């Protein structure tokens, strides 16, 4: 698709960086920064929602009595916790979209531009 063109070229197709350039970029502080920002967000959040889901599944499995406790009318703890899973899923999605737009996209765009030349 793309042909290797000089870095400053303004031909419509973007250049392919050389293998060495990828290695250099991987070691660069800007890339490390992007990588660690991504990981510092997604790893803890993943740990959180998986633990919360695991807790919920375990409660549903071994704490039927507790889950059956009625809270409002016939709506019991189980239903509320279940709906809570929906709420956290929506909330994490919204948080991540905001985070990625603010922290990740500008950084990755800058790196891409550096490697491939300016966006046409």
């Amino acid at each position: 698709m793309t042909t290797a063109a000089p870095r400053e070229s303004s031909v419509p197709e973007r250049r392919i960086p050389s293998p060495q350039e990828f290695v250099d970029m991987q070691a660069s502080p800007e890339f490390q920064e992007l990588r660690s920002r991504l990981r510092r967000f997604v790893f803890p959040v993943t740990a959180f929602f998986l633990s919360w889901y695991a807790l919920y599944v375990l409660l549903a499995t071994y704490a039927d009595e507790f889950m059956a406790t009625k809270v409002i009318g016939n709506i019991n703890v189980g239903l509320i916790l279940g709906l809570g899973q929906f709420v956290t899923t929506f909330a994490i999605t919204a948080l991540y979209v905001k985070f990625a737009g603010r922290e990740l996209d500008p950084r990755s765009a800058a790196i891409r531009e550096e490697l491939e030349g300016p966006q046409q």
Partner: protein
Amino acid sequence: MNVLAQAHTDVGNPILNIAIFIAFVVVTMGLVIKASRTTKKASDFYTGGGQFSGPQNGFAIAGDYLSAASFLGIAGAIAVYGYDGFLYSIGFLVAWLVALLLVAELLRNTGRFTMADVLSFRLKQRPVRMAAALSTLAVSLFYLLAQMAGAGGLVALLLDIEGTTGQAIVVAIVGALMIVYVLIGGMKGTTYVQMVKAVLLVAGAAVMFLLVLFAVRGNFSQLLADAQAMASNSADETVANRDILAPGAKYGISGMTRIDFISLGIALVLGTAGLPHVLMRFYTVPTAKEARRSVTWAISLIGAFYLFTLVLGYGAAKMVGPDVILGAPGGENAAAPLLAFELGGTVFLAVISAVAFATILAVVAGLAITASASFAHDIYANVLKRGNATEDEQVRVSRITVVVIGVLSIVLGILAMGQNIAFLVALAFAVAASANLPTLLYSLFWKKFNTTGALFSIYGGLISCLLLIVFSPAVSGKASSMFPNADFAWFPLSNPGIVSIPLAFVLGIVGTYVGRNKTEDPFKQAEMEVRSLTGVGVEKAVAH
């Protein structure tokens, strides 16, 4: 009660049902034929040229994901078992966070057509591609047969066909239609069908949701009480003794069923991000950012839909009742259509059934295209031909594969008729989470991960998962098994996830350790990581 059951079994007007379904097929076929005019290159056939927008793809993902399992299976499970059916929807939804946070964007940035593109990026091409393609085929086939079984059950209800021959014919028709869609429209046509279907399905569920809430005057607590009252009045003592508002009706019977439930929970939450047909959808958008937007849209649509099914399930328990549902042809899977009949009569039943049919058709088409792409692009072009196949040849092989897969899934679908669809789909999730997810995550996030690790993990996960399914009660030993007359079920759990998923993760580490002295291309690892995070090398969004 029994008289009522009889009366309600003859629901709807078969001719009207068929007419509405044919209308759907005609409209979508028109779309597919229109899309086919611009399907020329391999990238058009596999990924629709990568030109769909985030929201469009979000609808298509929802269309792909909200299978008959979600609509018929979950609504039915809630209607009969209550809360335990709801647990499926939670697993299916939370799973999307794994896809959103860890997989979607990185995958979009590194691959082109298939999951194997990503897995084999920095490892030894041929062995890893072969393994990834085989597991793609395995997952797709499982998923396919679940959908086909759903088609049989649905039509049993609509046309009141009790006999297996009639149902088998319907399964064959669905299979044939699916083959036609994919052959003509490729990924672009399939995506349009999925978008139309997602709109219809979510809208249909929303209307039913509103009608049920209207019937109880917005009092959800009352709905629960009425649903429980219906269950308690059941003629069947087991059903009558269930507390359908609390967990445990289905899985709380013994220590073993409880572990089975945990196993199911693990498979559901980790399966989605390893489903090849879901992963392939990320390639139909031009950038990682669009991939993110599409997942966001998908999560909203899917989440809303599952909230609707909660009300639909309890609505069906209240207004139709577990006895009628279990007595209907199609069993549990008939709950949603029966509820539609209660709510809006013959016409509404016909509409909802046509939507359910459309659902099956669209999902089946998506699966077929994924499996065929994997065979043609991975096995044929890259492994057998060592990368020397032209794109035209690849597409030709894909088309042949679609036909083979279609026929195979028809046969397997007929074998699986009568099983709960959500349960069958859960098995596909278990295979996906065991064979695909560990390698996918390791190759995206673990620098030292190597070819041996990938092969250990993929084959270990795939084989252990399949073996455990074969020796599980799902296949033999119980009345509801595929082979009820045989009994070779020494593995007590019907979902193998709790064993095979951790095993596959561990095998990935063990394999990496075993193969640590074999050299991998150090440049490729750097290239993959830089690409995955920045999108370097991804074709541009603008049309060219």
